[in-house]
Structure formats: C-alpha cells, structure tokens
C-alpha cells in the first residue's frame, strides 16, 4: 500500500537546550544627546511620566513606531536613609521606589520586613545601600538574562554637565568582574553579582562593591554614594567632604548641587536626567535560552521514491522512468512536514536545495524546532 506519512519512533525525537548570546552596546550619546532638539530640556527619546516615578529611555524618539524601549531609570532611598525626610521632593515616591525594588530583588526577612540592598550580598550583616539608582533594562535587550561577567557600565562620577552630551572627565567603571565564578543566589529574583570599579577591586568581603547586577531581572542597582566623593569606593551614609556636582543640565543650582542635595531636593526625573548625562556607555551580553526538539526523519531506501506531484506523471505514466518499468523511481524532496496524529501540518522544514532520492539512497534529515 502506498503511504504518505511515516510515524516517528520514540527514539526519533530528542530535546536539547542551547544558550544564545548577543552583545548589547548602549552608547552614552543615545542616552544623553543624540535626540535633543536644541533645547536643554527636550530630549525626544526620553519619556517622563505624569506620575514621575521613573524615566524611560528609548533608542529613537519615542513617539515613532521605530523606537525601542531600552531601559528605565529611577531613584529611591530607604525609609532608614539619612536623606529621608518629609519635606524633601517626592520623598514618599522615592521611598516607595526603593521598597518596590528591594522587596522584589532583595526580598523579605523572617519578620516580613523588606530587606535593604546589601553591598556584599551577605544579607545578615555588612553595609546596606540605602540610596540607590536603579537601571532596569528592557526585556528586548536582556532577553532571558544578562550573561554573567559581561556587564560593564561607564559613567562620570565627577565633573559638571554644562550641555547635552557626556562630561569630559574620565569615566568611572562599574562591572561584574569575576562574576562568572562568583555570584549570589540569595535573591528571590534570581542570581546577582556585585559591581566593582575594577578587576583588582573584588575582595573576599565584597565591601568594595558599588552596586549589584541582577541577571534574570535585568536590573542594575548602583549606590548613589559613587557620586559622593571623587575617590572610590565611597563610604555609605557619610556626608561627602569633596562632593562632585550631580545636577542636571539646566538646573538652577548647576555646579553646586552634590548627590545628596539633588537626591533630596530634585524630582526623580531630574535625578534621572543628571545620571543620564553622566552615563558614558553600557555594554553586556544577553542570553536567550533556546529549547529545541530535534526530530530524526529516517528515510529508508524504499521510502519516498515516488511523488504525487502533478508533473510527476504524464497520462499516469511516471516521467522519470523513461518508459522503462525497471528504471528506478526517483523523487526530489524539498520540504519536510511535521504532522499531528490527525494529519494537521504543525511545522515545516525546508531543504536548501532539492535532494535526489531513489531506492539506492537512504537519508536521515534532522529537523530542529526551537521554542
């Protein structure tokens, strides 16, 4: 009997997992200068919201359908921070932002209280980061997760921002040095590592870290104190002796506002502006987890040597036989169709060129379906 469909044996399908990495470079000029239209307060790729809780950065003017959301920036501080005070600008929102990130990324302690971000990842002790800058990257960029050991952010922790564009001072580094073999798993949001200023900085205590990078969540948490002093790492909660300016372009007190003053006296949006204009670049590799099923289509010597193609016959006579019954039949498959039990076509695989199939050949075609 002629047949069209061949059933898979249980050993003809195998599942595999592949990690795919892409390099993601984000230049500071996109973040802080490419799309301003000449006014110091208008940047077309930066979206501020009426609620003022965060600021979104796009790679193109966000009103365009071509724009891609690349990351959000926001600021927050703990209720326990020395900077927390009722009279400060958006004080409640900054606390709410901090708590939201903290409860998702750091979790709760055994009493149900929100844990604060810890500088070395040891939640039981050590220095807490109570004033933070949060950069949450779009899922479009991070895909399934950020690759460990690939994250580096360059920013200017000193110097003034006179106009749009990055300031001139030497950029500071925040990178997850050594994270391929040294990362933490005590976060409810997945794995994270500590951001250091240089590869020489990591130490056994991690107390020299200036932030945290959460790989699956795609969130970088930077302590605000990196802007507090010209020397790093800065001490937490200590008033800066030689504070760097941290004002946004066009700010009234540009050049005299340090990070503490800006954090307490300016909105989240203004703080985000100030940070963006100090951001030199960000680069990381993302990871996509590809789960695949590989189907082995085993085509034996006597399988699929004839065709139901309308051109295969002429007045029912098989063309490729050339009038001779004993000539071998031959067919030229170009497509593999994968079917359900009720013969619905579920997936299609194409060969890059026709294959010759006759009774003297056997083939095994591997068809991979990615999910």
């Amino acid at each position, binding site marked *: 009997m002629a047949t*069209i469909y061949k059933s898979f044996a249980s050993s003809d399908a195998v599942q595999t997992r592949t990690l795919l990495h892409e390099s993601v470079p984000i230049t500071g000029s996109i973040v802080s200068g490419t799309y301003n239209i000449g006014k110091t307060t208008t940047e077309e790729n930066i979206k501020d919201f009426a609620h003022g809780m965060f600021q979104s950065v796009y790679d193109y003017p966000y009103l365009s359908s071509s724009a891609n959301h690349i990351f959000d920036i926001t600021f927050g501080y703990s209720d326990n921070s020395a900077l927390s005070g009722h009279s400060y600008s958006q004080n409640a929102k900054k606390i709410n932002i901090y708590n939201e990130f903290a409860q998702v990324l750091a979790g709760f302690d055994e009493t149900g209280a929100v844990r604060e971000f810890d500088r070395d990842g040891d939640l039981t002790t050590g220095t807490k980061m109570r004033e933070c800058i949060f950069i949450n990257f779009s899922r479009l960029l991070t895909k399934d997760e950020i690759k460990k050991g690939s994250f580096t952010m360059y920013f200017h922790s000193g110097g003034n921002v006179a106009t749009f564009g990055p300031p001139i001072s030497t950029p500071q580094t925040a990178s997850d040095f050594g994270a391929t073999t040294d990362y933490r798993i005590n976060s409810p949001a997945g794995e994270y590592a500590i951001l250091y200023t240089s590869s020489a900085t990591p130490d056994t205590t991690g107390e020299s870290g200036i932030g945290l990078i959460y790989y699956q969540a795609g969130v970088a948490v930077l302590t605000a104190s990196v802007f507090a002093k010209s020397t790093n790492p800065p001490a937490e909660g200590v008033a800066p002796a030689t504070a760097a300016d941290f004002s946004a372009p066009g700010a009234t007190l540009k050049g005299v506002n340090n990070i503490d003053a800006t954090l307490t006296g300016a909105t989240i949006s203004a703080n985000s502006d100030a940070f963006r204009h100090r951001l030199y670049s960000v680069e990381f590799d993302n990871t996509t987890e590809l789960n695949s099923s590989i189907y082995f289509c085993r085509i034996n010597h006597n399988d699929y040597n004839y065709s*139901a193609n309308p051109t295969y016959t002429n007045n029912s006579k098989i063309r490729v036989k050339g009038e001779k*019954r004993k000539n071998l039949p031959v067919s030229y*498959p170009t497509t593999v169709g*994968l079917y359900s039990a009720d*013969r619905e076509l579920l*997936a299609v695989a*194409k060969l890059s060129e026709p294959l010759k199939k006759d009774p003297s050949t056997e083939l095994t075609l591997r068809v991979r379906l990615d999910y």
Partner: protein
Amino acid sequence: MAFLDNSGDIILDAVLTDTGRMRLAKGDGSFQITSFALGDDEIDYSLFNVNAATANQDLSILQTPVFEAFTNNASSMKSKLLTIADPNLLYLPVIQINEIYSGNNTAKHGDGVFVVAVNSDTETKFKTNKIVMYGENPSSEARYVRCDQGLDTSSISPSHALNAALLETQYAIEVDNRLLSVVSSDGSTAASVSFIDDDDIATYYLSQASNPSFVYDNPETSASATTQVISGPRGTILEFKFSSSLDVIDGSYFDELGSTKVMTDDYGADDASSTYKYIDTFVRIQGMTTGYSIDIPVRLIRFKTD
C-alpha cells in the same frame, strides 16, 4: 517570499505553521508531532530529461531554487512524496473530475466552475438546465461532484484491476468552513468534520469503509467513453455535494470576499438574466493513499436584492 541561500551547507529551516502555533497556544496537548511527510512543491518533473546522459537527466531539477518555509499550513506540502514498496511501477493513479457521468447532474456550470445557489430565493431562479447546485436545499436537486480515481492511460485496459497498493480508500476534502459544508451526493447525509484549522478550512476524512455513500469502488470495467474519464484501470469514486453555511445563506461574506455579475437564469422568464453576488473558492480533494490532489473550482451565488 525569498529564495533560500543554498551556497553553503544543506540546512533545514523549520518553522511552526499557524496551526501549529494555535495548537501550542491552546495548551491542551493537541500539539503533538507524531509523523512526517516529504514534499516537492517546487519541483517540475517535466524538466527531467530522460534522453540525456544519466548524470545530466536531473540537472535542471537539482538547480531548482527552494522557497523559504510558508507558515500557512494550507500553503505547504501540496504535493507529497510516496512510499511504495514496488520500485517497478510505471504508472501512478490520478484523480479526475468526472463531468460526463450523468449529464448536467455531474457537469460544471458553463462558466467552468461548480455553481452553488446559497439560499432558497436564489435556487428558485434556476431550472435544471442551468446546472446550478442548491446549497440551502441540497436534497431537492440531483447535481453533485464526482471524482474518479485510477490510471488514466489507454495503454492498459480498464478491465484490469488497479494495483491494490494504489487504491484510494480514503479521501480528504478541504472546504472553507465559513461558506460550505459537505453532504452526500443525494443530500441526505452530512459528512462529519474531522477538524477545522485556524484559517477556517474544514477537513473531512471520508473512507470507503465508514462513508460508503461518499466513497465506493468504480464497478465499470469497460471503456465507456461516454461515462468514464479514467481510461485505464479504475479505483474508487468520490461523490459529494455542498450545503451552504448559515452565514452565506444570510448573505455574509459576499461583499467582503466576492463581487457581482450578471448570470443567465430563469427569473421571470426562461433564459432571462439577473445580477448575482458571487464568491469564488475552491475545494481540495486529496487521496490519502497516494497523496494525489486536485482543486475543484466552486462559485457561490446569491441573488442580489439590493
């Protein structure tokens, strides 16, 4: 639809069809791959040069560029490859529309399509000689579609039996479910839909064992040029007709999918003419043994009252 780059290694480019994605999204376990088939949609076997040296016979065929995969399940795998144990076959069966078996009852309309009047109002405007099927009342007229299977060659007498390995005992009929359903040739039995895909294409599997009013052996073994279209050994016959969906009876889809035309009818007087809305579609018949398929052109008409 671009051509695939075949300058490098042979690589399979596998994609889920729209139906595959739909079943995957359902999450009900209906996405389960159990079998495969091979297709050769791009190949034109008339390019096979039997008079050339062996190495050159299929030169043109092997150079055929191959399309990327279509994700529409109805657009892929139209012609499939066959597994037949006997390598010494010289003939393969075909399926043909038999328009001559019963005069006007099995013939197409003069426009070259099978015409279905979708509602009673339209049906009354055509007498028998206009060769229009009745979609709302299919049992009240005798017209139907008949397809014959067999070896269409005069080299072998029809008195010989068709090789059992090539006998079609089951057919698949694919119909646009928005417009039509399938009923038996006398209109008395509705066929059961096997499944409806994401594009509203309903597939009916009709077998000789389960649906004898649709599929049966062709008993005619003489040449019978006036009633048979298969010249050689004959296999089975598939007979059916159409029933209109409620949507087209109600007039839906005609403005969206169709147009209007003036047709000769018997409205008011014999051989008068009126304007009708129409939708052109096709119905695919595929033999489940040999994979051979044909597309049958169908036109749905509805008297234009507005």
